[in-house]
C-alpha cells in the first residue's frame, strides 16, 4: 500500500476503496495538522477545521488530478477554514482591550511574568508557525515531512512527494530561505538577544529587541 502513488490512491478511494482512503489520511493528515498548528487555533476549532477539510475532500476525490494538486488543495482548504473560524471567534467574542487574552489571540504569550528567555522563545516559535503558514503548499509539505517526529528518511520523503533524492536538499534550502524572508520573521531579522534593534514594533509583532 505504501508504494502506491497518491494518484492511484485518490482513484481507488474515489471508487470506494476504504484502505486507499486510510492511506491518504496517513500520508496527508500531518500536513493538515501542521497548517492548523501554524494558525494557533483552539483545540475545538482545530478539530472542526480538520474534520471539515476531510469531509470536503471526500466529495472532491474525482476532481483531484495529481499528488501535487492534492497537497496544495489540502493546504489551501485548511488555511481558508482556519481563517474562517478565527474570524468567527473574533466576531462572537466582545473584545476588551485590557483583557490578557487579546494578546494571546494575536499570538503573544499571555503570561506577563514569564522569564524573558521563555517569552522570547515562545515569540520566535509563533513567528515560525506564522511564517510556515505563509509558505507555498509544496514548501509546507516538504518542511513538515523533514521535521516530522519520528523522523522520515530522505528516501521516504522523496517517495511521498514524488521528488528525486537529489532535489530534496536544494528544495529544502530554497524553502528555508523563503521562511527567513517572510514577513512574520521580519521583526526578528538580525535581532540579538537583549539588544535593541532598529525600527521597533511592526503590526503587532512586538518582538524583536526585548
Amino acid at each position, binding site marked *: 500500500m505504501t508504494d502506491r502513488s497518491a494518484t492511484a490512491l485518490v482513484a481507488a478511494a474515489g471508487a*470506494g476503496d476504504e484502505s486507499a482512503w486510510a492511506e491518504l489520511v496517513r500520508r496527508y493528515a500531518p500536513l493538515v495538522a501542521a497548517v492548523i498548528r501554524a494558525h494557533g487555533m483552539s483545540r475545538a476549532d482545530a478539530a472542526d477545521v480538520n*474534520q471539515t477539510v476531510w469531509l470536503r475532500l471526500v466529495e472532491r476525490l474525482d476532481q483531484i488530478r495529481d499528488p501535487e494538486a492534492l497537497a496544495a488543495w489540502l493546504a489551501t482548504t485548511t488555511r481558508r477554514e482556519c*481563517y474562517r473560524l478565527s474570524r468567527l471567534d473574533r466576531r462572537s467574542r466582545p473584545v476588551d482591550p485590557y483583557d490578557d487574552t487579546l494578546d494571546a489571540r494575536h499570538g503573544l504569550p499571555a503570561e506577563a511574568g514569564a522569564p524573558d528567555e521563555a517569552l522570547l522563545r515562545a515569540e520566535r*516559535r509563533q513567528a515560525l508557525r506564522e511564517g510556515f503558514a505563509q509558505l507555498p503548499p509544496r514548501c509546507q509539505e516538504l518542511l513538515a515531512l*523533514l521535521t516530522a517526529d519520528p523522523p522520515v528518511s530522505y528516501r521516504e520523503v522523496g517517495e511521498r512527494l514524488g521528488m528525486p533524492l537529489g532535489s530534496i536538499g536544494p528544495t529544502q534550502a530554497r524553502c528555508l530561505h523563503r*521562511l527567513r524572508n517572510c514577513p512574520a520573521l521580519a521583526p526578528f531579522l538580525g535581532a540579538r538577544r537583549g539588544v535593541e534593534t532598529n525600527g521597533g514594533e511592526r503590526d503587532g509583532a512586538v518582538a524583536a529587541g526585548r
Partner: protein
Amino acid sequence: MALWPPADDDALTVELGAALWDAGPVPEEFLTAARAAFAWRTVDAELAVAELTFDSACDAEPAGLTRSGGPARTLSFRSGQVVLEIEVTEAGIVGQLSPPRGGRVTARTTAGPYDESPVDEVGFFSLGAPPAGPVRLSARADGYAVATDWVSLG
C-alpha cells in the same frame, strides 16, 4: 548573542520542527475524524454539491462592514442555477432557496440530522440554531436536489 533566525539550515529546520510539532504528532481524534469522513462518500452521492461561494465571516466586503454589521452571518451556496442563501444568528438559521419549487431542507451534523424545514412558495425556510462543528444542508425540491459544502456555522 546568536543571530536569529539561525543562518544554518539544519539549525533552522530543528527550530521549525520544535515550533510545528511540539504539541506532539497528529492527534488521534484528527486521524479518527479523517478516516470516518470516508463514510460520507456515498451518503449524498445523488445530490449535487452546492459550493460555498460567500461567507460574510471571512469573505471580502467593504472594509469594516463585517465587524459592525450586526450579529447575522450570511452565507451563499451555489450549484449551477440553484442558489441557497442563509443567515445565521444565535436564534437559528433563516434561508432562501432559489428557484423556489417547494420541497424540504434538512440540516445535519456528522452525527445525523438535527432539524428540517419545509420550503415555502417563495423559497424561504427556517432551521434551529446549528450545533458546533461542520454542518451541511440538503435541499430536495421539485426538479433538483443539492447538498451544501460542509461548513462550521455554530
